[in-house]
Every structure is written in structure tokens, then in C-alpha cells.
């Protein structure tokens, strides 16, 4: 990514997606440094407040990655995430924030390539949208 000021805060679940990112690293797959990884125990730990706080503090995009449906380490955490993040995206539209700035996807522990692909796609999306300039109040 050319503009390294664009930050994408990424929440990765400990059991699948963080392992997947690790795999991408081991395989020397490239993804832009704009993607900043925060490990959480489950994608279900990602409170909508965290996403809004990330935007408030200057993130241009937020990526949330969890286990594929049915594979959650805690059985049902990612089902809750699916509902919360979709409703959050719809709510953010009311604030003039493009829903594409938030992406929820599933990356399994063995899917290093998929992690790199999703990360690269997200960077492209955010590059197209540009920085999120919230109004000064």
C-alpha cells in the first residue's frame, strides 16, 4: 500500500485466524503493514465499541477474523459476531461511515493463504475509500 498512514485495525481470534496469520508468516506470504493485528480469544470478544473506538482513534478500516461457522472454539461465539458486526455496519451507515470499512470474515488455522488474500483485499478496499475523515466537533 502506498499510503502507509491508512491503518486497518484487525482483530484475530486466537484459535483459528491468528494461527492462520502465523501460517501466512511462516510461508513468507506478503501482506501490507497497514494491517495491524490484535489477538483476541474469540471473534465474539470484539465488542462493537472496540470497532467504533478504532475509527475514533484514526483507523480507516477494521477487520475482524474468526473461525468458520461451526468451528468456533467456544462453539457459538462467531455466530454472535456475525449478528453484531452486521448490525454495527448498518448502524455506522447512519453515521456516514461506509459499511465496507468493516469486514468480518472467516480464516481457519490452516488457511495462511486465505489470510493473506483477505488482508490484501481489505487494504485494496480501504485504499479505494481513502482515509476516514470524521468531522471535528
Amino acid at each position, binding site marked *: 500500500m502506498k499510503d502507509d498512514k491508512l491503518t486497518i485495525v484487525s482483530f484475530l481470534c486466537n484459535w483459528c485466524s491468528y494461527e492462520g496469520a502465523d501460517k501466512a508468516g511462516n510461508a513468507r506470504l506478503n501482506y501490507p503493514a497497514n494491517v495491524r493485528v490484535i489477538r483476541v480469544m474469540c471473534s465474539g470478544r470484539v*465488542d*462493537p*465499541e472496540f470497532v*467504533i*473506538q478504532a*475509527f*475514533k482513534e484514526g483507523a480507516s478500516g477494521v477487520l475482524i477474523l474468526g473461525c468458520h*461457522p*461451526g468451528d468456533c472454539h467456544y462453539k*457459538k461465539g462467531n*455466530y*454472535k459476531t*456475525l*449478528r*453484531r458486526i*452486521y*448490525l*454495527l455496519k*448498518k*448502524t*455506522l*451507515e*447512519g*453515521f*456516514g*461511515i461506509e459499511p465496507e470499512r468493516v469486514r468480518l470474515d472467516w480464516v481457519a488455522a490452516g488457511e495462511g493463504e486465505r489470510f493473506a488474500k483477505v488482508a490484501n483485499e481489505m487494504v485494496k478496499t480501504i485504499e479505494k475509500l481513502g482515509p476516514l*475523515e*470524521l*468531522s471535528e*466537533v
Partner: protein
Amino acid sequence: MAKPKVAFYWCASCGGCEEAVVDLAEDILKVVEAVDIVFWPVAMDFKKKDVVAMKDGEIAVSFINGAVRTEEQEEMVKLLRQKSGLVIAFGSCAHLGGIPGLANFWNRDTIFERVYKEVPSIANPKGVLPKTKTKVGDMELTLPEFWDTVRTLDQVIDVDYYIPGCAPPPDIIMNAVSAILEGKLPEKGSVLAPDKSLCDTCPRSEKKPEKISMKEIKRPYEIISDPEKCFLEEGIICLGPATRSGCGEKCINANMPCRGCFGPTKEVIDHGAKGLSAIASILGIEDEEKLSEEDVQKLVDKIVDPAGLFYMYSLPSSLLRRKKI
């Protein structure tokens, strides 16, 4: 000993908070006996110059209701802050932004356009809009500046305590007044109401099932809801899980769901985010593994205007404060 001096003021509000003071009924006599009201534009004839003439800190307590949206309101609350020992944000609008705070989904231009040109009840063929200065002959008329953004009281001046509610109920007001008179106030910045969620004190909680799953979303007018049943169980969005208790469950008892006027409990930063999180977490979770992502989206899409719903009373106090201009 001289009685402590008290002031009341209103900013962007509906007048309901002023009525709430009158709603103290006989109790207001106890208040009037204990204090001297030195400023209350809605009920008594004092002027701004009377406040200006006072010494700094001379007023013991100022109760200010309403959000801050104009230059005049900002000037008056700054003046009252200077002249007061304690400032209390009184009611939802001063506390969180309240209903007037929903204007933060628009800005001054779009609001003026709508109010002075578009609404069906307006006749304004010349398209005149309010201005801060207008020449009339050789005179100049002035109006206070109307800001793009509605702010909570504590975004404009330092606030000591908060009395929540739209409008605050009499018992919450009396408890606060007694605490002030007896000097039994909690730490500065506290909301003078219980720190429990509404579900905790809800009269319907006893009959609530162990686990609630909202199978579908209904709006209150679409069904005749059972006055014994939890609203969420019936598919009606109620913000009880994310909202502070202390209101006396008036809406619930009138068979209407909570819309969040008491704001969040102490540890929550963003009331709307917590509300939407609570609702989403119980939406279609029965056999959730069988629902496809499209099914879930269809279910969520039934929620009309989620931003306006979850931030109904708290938009200016939220993390984002307003829509992007």
C-alpha cells in the same frame, strides 16, 4: 443562616424537565423552604443581568437541562458555571444530548433547508433563512449562532453531577436534592441514580425465560404485546439490557419498551454500541447453526433506522458524536 441559592436553566429541551420540577408536587414546598431560587427563566422574572451581578460561586447549585446547540446557550451555561458552586446536568438532553441530539445526523444547512423550506406547513416563498445579523432600516437585528453540532452540557462546561431521565422522575430528583442539602454526595462526575441495568429491576424479569432468542423483529404497533412477557421474547426491541435503571419502569408499565433515556451504566462508553450488541446477541440464536448468513442479514434488516434507534437519547455523548459532514 442564609439559604443556599439555586438556579434553573434550560437550553435545547422541550420543557419537560421544568415540568418535572413542578411534578415534585407537595415536595416542592420542602425544596422552596430550604433554598432561595435566584434564577429560573421559565417560571420567575429574573434577568441575565441579575446573574452577571452575582459573585463567582454565589449560586450554590445550578440545575441545567437541555443540550447545547446555540451560541446563546453556550454563553449562558458558561456564565452559570462561573457563578455556581455545583452544576448539575438535569435530564437526558443535558446528560447525553437527548432527543434534540438526534439532529447530529444532520447539520445546520440541512436542518434549515428542511425546517424553513421543505416542510409542508411552511410558506416561505422568498426562501428566507435565519441569519445572525439582519439589517432593518438603519438598525441591525441579531440572533445567536446555531451550531452544526448539538453538544452535551459536559462537552461545554465542567459538570459536577448528572440527574438522568426524560424527564427525571420525582424520586430521583428528591434523592439528589436531599443528597446536596445534606452534603452526602458521591464522587464528582457521578450519575445520581442506581448503577443497575433496567432488566435487573424490570417487573417482567421474573417471568423471563432462562435464555431469550428473538426469532423476529416486531415494532410496538405491529402486535398487541402481552403485558406480562419480556418485550425481547416477543420480538420487540427494548434497550433495558443496556440502560440504567431508576426510572420507575414507567414505560414498561405502560406496555412500551425502553428507549434508553437514563443512558448507560457507569462502565459503558458508548450506549448505542452496547444496545446494538445486546440485541444482536440474542437475534435468531435458536438453531443459529442452521441459519445462513443471508438468513441472519434478513433478520437484522428488519431493524428500521438502527442508528436512530440505538442512539435515540445518546448521540452527542457517543464516541462518534455526530454523522460525518
